[in-house]
């Protein structure tokens, strides 16, 4: 993964919200582009729908290799039976991703000489999805201390649930059964065994995969009840040389979720950036993420989105319908729990605002072994405050405007462009000279010197 690392002085984006004030009318803006998980080469996506102790966990992967070589070992809190495991719709992660991705929005300045406002919107969505598995082969016998708690087939996967007494036994069981376990895995299996976790081991059943008609492996979805609200990331780091990106979508009836044992930091948002970024929004977001990641000492989780799933503003994709929410694991739609307001009982068959009790939190964690020694622990909170990664393009009015208001307006543009350029430079670490070259030019020939001066000191 190429990372553009920058060490420019950083000023909190929050500050810029106050300095670059937007026209009040244009509060929400229009969605034009999104920065979804397609940006990252090695990104896992996990959706966790959780209410009280009940959890439905969906793990998506963009495994690129041969299906026969695919295998995954995931520590899980309880023994899972066949009915607790299923294969999820492959598009569901893409939907969650598209709905919650950081977004670029645009506004258009009106002709200052005739104060009528006009809006246009463009849609250039990028494609989506992505994860990282552990590789291996076949299964057969038993080894000391390892119990096969359950063994079944779901969709294109052969699944074994193991419990073990010793990590050595588990390691040799896996090896005897044809799983290629990376060196050093044994030491990492031990803490999970001792915490009485079980092991969910999945590999691809080639016959079923070939007859399924799918070209890619579908996400696996598991359901369990446990007070543990965590994701084991240590196993995935056994051999990893480079940072791995993990996008976690947490769906809760209560409110925003956060990481309990690392800091959760909001990604810079609500800032005005130059218009040319529209053409390179993916690069912008990647650079900005890298800069934020470095600035925060690489040991935080970034909050990219937190919103009630009943709506969005602006929408980067349609909100998920009740059926899609169910596919994503939301199991409480029919039986509202937690902080739900009681549904009105009058008015007959009025459609229920189903998704109003689903709150989505999108966390982006880029982790490495040295900065993330401990598995991720989460907690859901009652925080209903919305947040989104949102970047604003304010298109200037550059056509002829010869009235006094028009001249004053044009006189103010260079300063505004430069502020946007500086913001962009601070966020991404891009060179300010390079950015300035791409800024639009403003004709100031007919603008008086004092209008220019006034605009400058304003």
């Amino acid at each position, binding site marked *: 993964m190429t990372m553009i690392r920058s060490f420019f002085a950083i000023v909190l984006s929050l500050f810029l919200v106050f300095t670059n004030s937007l026209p009040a009318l244009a509060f929400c803006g229009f969605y034009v582009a999104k920065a979804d998980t397609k940006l990252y080469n090695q990104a896992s996506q996990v959706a966790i729908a959780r209410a009280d102790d009940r959890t439905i966990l969906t793990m998506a992967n963009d495994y690129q290799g041969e299906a026969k070589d695919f295998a995954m070992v995931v520590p899980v809190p309880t023994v899972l039976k066949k009915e607790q495991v299923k294969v999820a719709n492959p598009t569901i992660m893409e939907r969650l991703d598209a709905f919650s991705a950081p977004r670029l929005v645009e506004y258009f300045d009106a002709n200052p000489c005739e104060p009528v406002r006009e809006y246009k919107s463009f849609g250039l969505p990028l494609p989506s999805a992505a994860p990282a598995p552990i590789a291996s082969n076949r299964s057969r016998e038993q080894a000391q201390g390892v119990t096969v708690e359950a063994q079944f087939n779901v969709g294109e996967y052969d699944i074994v649930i193991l419990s073990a007494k010793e*990590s050595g036994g588990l390691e040799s069981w896996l090896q005897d059964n044809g799983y290629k376990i990376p060196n050093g895995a044994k*030491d990492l299996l*031990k*803490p999970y065994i*001792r*915490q009485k976790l079980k092991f969910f081991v999945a590999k691809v059943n080639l016959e079923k995969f070939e007859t399924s008609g799918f070209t890619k492996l579908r996400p696996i979805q598991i359901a369990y009840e446990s*007070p*543990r*609200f*965590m994701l084991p990331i240590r196993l995935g780091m056994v051999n990893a040389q480079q940072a791995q990106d993990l996008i976690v979508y947490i769906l809760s009836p*209560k*409110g925003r979720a*956060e*990481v*309990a*044992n*690392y*800091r*959760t*930091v*909001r990604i810079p948002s609500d800032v005005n950036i130059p218009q040319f970024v529209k053409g390179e929004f993916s690069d912008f977001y990647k650079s900005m993420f890298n800069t934020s990641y470095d600035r925060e*000492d690489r*040991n*935080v989780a970034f909050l990219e989105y937190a919103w009630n799933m009943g709506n969005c503003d602006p929408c980067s994709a349609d909100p998920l319908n009740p059926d899609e929410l169910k596919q994503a694991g939301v199991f409480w739609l029919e039986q509202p729990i*937690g*902080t739900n307001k009681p549904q009105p009982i009058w008015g007959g068959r009025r459609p229920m605002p189903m998704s109003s009790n689903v709150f989505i939190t999108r966390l982006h964690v880029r982790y490495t072994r*040295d900065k993330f*020694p*401990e598995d991720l*622990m989460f*907690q859901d*909170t*009652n*925080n*209903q*405050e919305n947040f989104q990664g949102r970047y604003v393009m304010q298109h200037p009015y550059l056509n002829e405007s010869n009235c006094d208001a028009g001249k004053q307006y044009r006189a103010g543009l260079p300063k505004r462009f430069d502020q946007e350029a500086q913001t962009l430079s601070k966020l991404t670490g891009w060179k300010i000279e390079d950015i300035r070259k791409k800024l639009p030019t403003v004709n100031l020939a007919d603008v008086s010197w004092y209008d220019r001066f006034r605009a400058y000191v304003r």
Partner: protein
Amino acid sequence: MRTPIDARLYQIGFLTSFLLLGFLTRDWQLHIEVVLTAIVAALTTQYLCLKLKNSRNLLVPLPKGDLGGSSQFYSPMITALGLSVLLRVDHPWAMAFAATIAVLSKFLLEFNQKHIFNPANFGIVCAVLFTDEAWVSPGQWGESMWYVGMFLICGGLVLKKVGRWDTTIAFLSFYFAMEALRNVYLGWTWDVWSHRMMSGSLIMFSFFMITDPRTIPNAKPARIIWTFTIALITFILRNYFFMTTAVFFALFLAAPLTILLDWIFKDDRFDWFNLPSAITPEIKSV
């Protein structure tokens, strides 16, 4: 003779700076109206309770010469700031509830002229349990050593002023040891342990909440037993019940134990106005 500065003023200063620091550098979504609500609610409750207490001449008299003096409001101020640093709410009313009940608990839940619960702790636990609006973000400080160091220094200053540093040391030692044993048993590398221990929230708790001299046992051996109990409950709640905010509940559960321990180990009750002279030479001269 110079009048010494009340240790609680230091504490107010430190808590204010932590609040600002968290707001400015740690990306806390802190709302000024919530902080103001906490302060107003705590001070008002304190005022009303004092008023009620005096006019009816109930219970114990207030410390001599200090009826309604400004120092009566140090404690609710500390409570309000502590709540602002630790508790997060969705609406200000939840903070008002927490601050009010925290200060009320001092007046209503007392035994032998000592309040049973640490007010801020009581407020946090009640707000988390009884409102659907409040939570604690244990990850909010991160684990930078720098912050840990600052807590150690600032907390150390306050504790030295009031002579209860032994609670912090005892609690952290017991808790660190328990977690270390678990780490060895599980076979985690040591960076897992240090990551857990360096949590700014844990350190903050150990220095500013567990040390409140008005709610902890008076005698040293009692305090050691008491901190061991809190460490043990924290350890169990965190590792076996997976509670991310285990420390606050541990302190809440262990608080009533103080009564029993004070009865077994007799010692002088702590008084902000009669500090044990051996520890604070500065105050000794007064």
